[in-house]
């Protein structure tokens, strides 16, 4: 149907027919579990029992009182805030550095930096676990050559979270860099030349041309990174620390897994999921309201 023409009844039927399979899948695998999670959040259930008891808001109050929740909430905030420089800003500067070198050299750098993105996070976690073994890891051997000693980064509650954050940043850096490079491809070279002729330096070029052009990409990377920062660190947490030591690396997502699929306290797990949903919803809405006005779409 061409734009401007009023859709006929047949067009409407066709639209619905084409949309139906996708809508059905979304309804079954997204909306129904979402609704059912809300129902479970108000019940006490251990998954295997046929008995499910309505408990009102008890799961929420119990969850909020539990010491693991405080640790998970605080750590989630650190994972999100710490991700911004590491996963949003750092890849931007790497993309800029690659953008200015020759295409042939750029391909080499791009490939090298993108490689970790292609690896499974399980493999990445195991790899770092052995690299960071403070007694027999390669990291320790390198430090020993410098006369230093590798601290137990993953076993200390002071450093374990930051180590996981750094590993997840290393893994995602190449992907975000590629998104920025795609955004940089739309920077108008003629405008750069014109600005240069007018005497603009690198800083001015970045501030008045590149940064505004990249703002939709940055906005996308920011939203995805925040969501990933809650979800994506699940694998390294599970493989490297199991949320420890002393709950120092757990986050809300891992806490839900612990309650739902280790303790089989489905009510707590569902209540935690509802809280995560609310947090992501609010954070994304706030970001869209505040940041979207500053994004420049061409």
């Amino acid at each position, binding site marked *: 149907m061409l734009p401007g023409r009023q859709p006929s009844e047949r067009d409407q039927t066709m639209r619905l027919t084409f949309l139906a399979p996708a809508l059905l899948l979304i309804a079954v695998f997204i909306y129904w579990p979402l609704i059912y999670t809300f129902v479970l959040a108000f019940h*006490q*259930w*251990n*998954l*295997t*029992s046929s*008995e499910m*008891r309505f408990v009102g808001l008890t799961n929420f109050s119990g969850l909020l009182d539990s010491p693991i929740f405080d640790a998970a909430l605080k750590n989630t905030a650190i994972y999100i805030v710490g991700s911004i420089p590491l996963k949003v800003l750092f890849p931007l500067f790497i993309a800029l550095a690659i953008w200015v070198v020759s295409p042939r050299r750029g391909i080499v750098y791009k490939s090298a930096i993108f490689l970790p993105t292609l690896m499974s996070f399980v493999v990445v976690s195991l790899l770092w*676990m052995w690299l960071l*073994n*403070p*007694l*027999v890891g390669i990291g320790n051997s390198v430090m020993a050559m410098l006369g230093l000693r590798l601290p*137990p980064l*993953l*076993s*200390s*509650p002071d450093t374990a979270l930051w180590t996981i954050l750094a590993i997840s940043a290393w893994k995602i850096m190449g992907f975000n860099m590629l998104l920025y490079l795609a955004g940089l491809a739309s920077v108008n070279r003629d405008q750069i030349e014109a600005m240069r002729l007018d005497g603009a330096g690198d800083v001015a070029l970045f501030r008045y041309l590149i940064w505004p052009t990249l703002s939709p990409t940055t906005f996308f990377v920011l939203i995805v990174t925040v969501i990933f920062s809650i979800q994506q660190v699940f694998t390294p947490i599970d493989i490297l620390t*199991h949320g*420890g*030591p*002393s*709950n*120092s690396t757990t986050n809300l997502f891992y806490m839900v897994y*612990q309650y739902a*699929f*280790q*303790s*089989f*306290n489905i009510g707590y797990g569902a209540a935690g999921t509802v809280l995560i949903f609310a947090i992501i919803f609010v954070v994304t809405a706030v970001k869209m309201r505040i940041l979207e006005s500053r994004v420049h779409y061409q």
Partner: protein
Amino acid sequence: MAMTTVRKWVVAFALSVLAGSAHAANEISFYYYSVSPNNAKAVEDLIAAFEKENPDIKVKGSNKDYRTLNAEIKTALVAGNPPDVGQILTQSISDMVLNARAIPLEKSPDGAKWMERFYPSFRTLGQFKGQNYLLPFTHGVALMYYNKSLMKEAGLSPDSPPANWDELVKQAQQIKDKTGKEGVFAFGTDNDWNTQTILIAGGANILSPEGDRFTFADEKGIAALQTWQDLSKKYGLMPSITTRQALAAFNAGQLGFYIYTSAQLVGIVNNAKGNFDVGVAAVPRFGSEPLKLPNSGSGLMVFSQDPERQKNAFKFLESLSRPENSIKMSLDSGYMPVTMDPMSDPRITDFVAKVPQYSVMLDQMKVVVPKPQYPGDRAVDIQNLMVGLLDDLLAGRGTAAELAPEAQRRMNETLGQPAK
């Protein structure tokens, strides 16, 4: 023509489904775990031997992480596809009976007469409310492994390993000072058996005599936990690493003493060949407290809900209960031989002649006491709290006197809140 083709496809599909279900009916799904490659190989050998004897039955073994194995069984049960047999830690028996519909072994067509092949105390470990649920399979005991070569290098006598924790501190310090290597790794924070072993070896009672509440935070329990924390926080002799990293370090000759389950004995001895001399001794005593140690490990439970599949599962358990098979599991790993009168088997005496360190494990069987079973259906939460206590001590979140009573309070509180 088109209809004929369609009909052919339908018939082919139906046959393949039927063939698939026929195959599935003669398949035993088996979830197990292993703490060393030797253990996994021993299980694979036992499966192969069973399949050879029963060519019409296929055992589909899945090697799992022991920390998530119970959860995987429960989720598979909810999905209507539980494994027929699962390897379960003894402290989880009540949880798996109450929450995962484990089948009592007495339901076996022959009444599980083969359970009499096991030493009575190991049979008792697998009982719940008067019924047998757990076939004894892999029960270990804590041992102290030590690097004799490092001891010599540090000016210590490799024939006099530490007999108590004071001596352990002195010798580990000497190794660290003289060789630059790490001193000791004793009981990590990877599972609750570590907490149990420290407490029981220190003379504490984990549960009340009625078995309905936790009582470990008494004078002896706190003293034992403090001794363990001091190793790391006061003396700086125990590096903050995971058990897996510690084993790798010990195998690489970078660690003086490594205290963990006998399940790793054969693997450690084999690995050390040609690298360094490895010694094995009893776990150091806490002061003058006579040594008592809980068993580690697990047994096998039946989870299949279908009577036909249960028959095959029981057949598999019968095969594993035979003395030759349980002794093979012990000799290939270092787990205790769980069969009646194991010492009458010449394979044990032959093995001791070849691997003298194995005799230390046999000696330690005398001091083994049953690992306590957690009451109620919140075993997983209790396990997490037990592990969390060691985690908090290692992280320096407080002293044992500050942390143990609070952990005990939370465990008792959890017991009062059933999951259903």
